[in-house]
């Protein structure tokens, strides 16, 4: 059952160009998140030139919280996730993450690219060496059902296979915060089942944020945030 969310923070000041973000159910602070947050967002806003993509976002998530970010194309879902991951600098506000984000945060995005010359195994080993964590290659490739392609370079992988590898990379360090941008977009039914299992597993160790415009993926979460133009 979806928890009722209450509005805690709304932009106090409206600018000439009105903020583009409104939440259908208010800006989320889950009850767990308020007590012991894993991820906290305060007054977060992003604008490109004079156009606000979102503004005044404030929420906190605790362990077990699964937030789905909904909205039309161009509503700013991917930008929000990239901002939370630290890949995009916010125009205002701040994001508090657990220490050592390279190990405590997992991100899988549609736009995220892989090294065309490196194999699936090499990607997992490279990521593990950089994050100073266990590569868990066998375990992860079994989990995302990609073991048969472990010697293939990324340039030879299909879009769906790349999505599975990105998912494996995202969950490799057993992150406390997992951000998935359109996780089922290029996956078959089996692949979407893997995403569901990963989301369920994530609930036991931290929080999850999924950006999607696929209504069926709402079931991955127990909290909702809608971005509207």
């Amino acid at each position: 059952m979806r928890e009722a969310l209450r509005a805690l923070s709304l932009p106090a000041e409206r600018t000439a160009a009105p903020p583009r973000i409104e939440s259908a159910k208010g800006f989320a602070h889950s009850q767990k998140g308020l007590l012991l947050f894993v991820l906290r967002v305060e007054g977060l806003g992003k604008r490109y030139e004079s156009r606000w993509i979102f503004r005044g976002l404030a929420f906190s998530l605790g362990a077990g919280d699964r937030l789905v970010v909904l909205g039309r194309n161009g509503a700013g879902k991917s930008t929000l996730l990239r901002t939370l991951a630290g890949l995009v600098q916010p125009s205002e506000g701040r994001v508090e993450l657990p220490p050592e984000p390279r190990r405590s945060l997992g991100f899988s995005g549609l736009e995220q690219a892989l090294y065309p010359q490196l194999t699936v195994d090499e990607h997992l080993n490279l990521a593990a060496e950089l994050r100073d964590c266990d590569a868990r290659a066998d375990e992860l490739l079994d989990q995302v059902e990609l073991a048969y392609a472990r010697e293939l370079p990324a340039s030879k992988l299909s879009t769906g296979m790349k999505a599975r590898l990105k998912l494996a990379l995202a969950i490799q360090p057993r992150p406390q915060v997992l951000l998935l941008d359109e996780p089922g977009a290029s996956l078959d039914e089996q692949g979407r089942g893997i995403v569901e299992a990963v989301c369920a597993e994530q609930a036991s160790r931290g929080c999850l944020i999924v950006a999607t415009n696929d209504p069926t993926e709402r079931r991955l979460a127990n909290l909702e945030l809608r971005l509207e133009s």
Partner: protein
Amino acid sequence: MSSGWKAEILAVYRKELQTELRSKSGLVTAGLFSFVTVVTISLVLFNKNVNAPGSGLQDISAGLVWVVILFASILNLPRTFLLEEEQGTADLLRLFARPHAVYWGKVLFNILQVLGTATLVSVLFLGFTGTRVSVPWIYVVSLIGGSCSMAGAVTLCGAIVAQAANRAALAGAIAVPLLLPLVQLGVTGMRAAFGSGLVGGGQAAAVGLVAYAAIMLAIGPWIYAAIWKT
């Protein structure tokens, strides 16, 4: 340096090496450019005694060696960062790695590339033109110091301009003041090594190149860390 840092730097270095050895784009470009340019120069100097005192050809040779190394290197070095941005893989590094480790991994790979290019150019140039090295230690120190300086300077330029919209203009504006003193020191060192300039001046230039490399390698990671997520 802790083992965590070492492992991270080596992971970036190995990744650069693996991708380059598999694509071979940089190796082929630098190798072909070096070979064709040196052969062209040797054809121009054919039948001329480049070692004759007072002919001025030693001075020209010193300049030509550095021009070939410079252009062969700047064809590839900035690509290490630009390619990451263009193919979208920079996000992977931003998610997984620390900026200093990324910079050091890439600059070490670039040093390897420039040293390889400089060695190739040297062997080809001395072999094809018959230029004699009178003071070998100045030649070697200038070549190594100059290669490390160039790798440091061009890597830094590449890192700064990688995210800029108007990359070409910015790269030129940054690279010229960084590379001109380096080339001037390199040519001075090489002239002395070929027996044309003063040995004392050559020594100072060789030491200057080593100092320049140390400065570039010391400030590079800090500047890169500052622009890492902007």
